[in-house]
């Protein structure tokens, strides 16, 4: 039983990432204001990025301290071969970093497109509250 509690506490990064993900999910579904939904979308995606970056940080997985940034000092021809480039130097896995770099840019582009749609909805209906938009659609029989 004790090892289970220890395992759960040692990986608290993942638990907090799930908490943040559900906060964003709640805002996307339950909030009425379109701007609030967008804020929820942002929080949701950052939580997923937090999960991936936690995967790349090997100090969570039991390597302990002494983990460094994935920057290789000097020119090492065998640097690309494995996790340990210099003797005794362990660094964070750079592959999730690169993937999440793309995800951040995609998030910014998605938010920009969504904001353009929100502005267009505001021009058409004069409101950004979801229920009022649906009500006006019913009135005009769209």
């Amino acid at each position, binding site marked *: 039983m004790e090892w289970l509690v220890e395992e759960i506490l040692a990986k*608290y*990064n993942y638990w*907090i990432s799930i*908490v*943040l993900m559900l*906060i*964003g999910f*709640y*805002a996307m579904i339950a*909030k*009425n*204001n379109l*701007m*609030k939904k*967008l*804020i*929820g979308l*942002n*929080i949701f995606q*950052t939580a997923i*990025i*937090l999960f991936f*970056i*936690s995967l*790349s*940080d090997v*100090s*969570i997985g039991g390597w302990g301290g002494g*983990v*460094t*940034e*994935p920057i290789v000092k000097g020119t090492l021809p065998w640097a690309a071969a494995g996790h340990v480039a210099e003797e005794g130097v362990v*660094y*964070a896995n750079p592959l999730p*970093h*690169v993937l*999440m*770099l793309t995800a*951040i*840019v995609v*998030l*910014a582009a998605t*938010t*920009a497109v969504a*904001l353009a749609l*929100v*502005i267009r909805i*505001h021009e058409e209906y004069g*409101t*950004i*509250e979801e229920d*009022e938009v649906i009500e006006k659609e019913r009135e005009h029989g769209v």
Partner: protein
Amino acid sequence: MIIPIDLLALFFLVVIALAAITVRDLLAAIVLLSAYSFVIAAVWVEMHAVDVGFTEAAVGAGATTAFMIAALARMKREEKR
């Protein structure tokens, strides 16, 4: 990963996220989202992902906030009750 800094920053993240989706003033919500982005950028630098950290600080906290405030300037600032 430095555990005390990590725990403190993640606690602040949850608090700021809850505040950002609860507050009624939309401009305040956007500024809170910007603060959220800065705290999470600090978390990534501390988790040895420096490239992700400075990209988030520039794109997430800078550009996205500017987009959102520019969009909000065209509509009502208060959320309906």
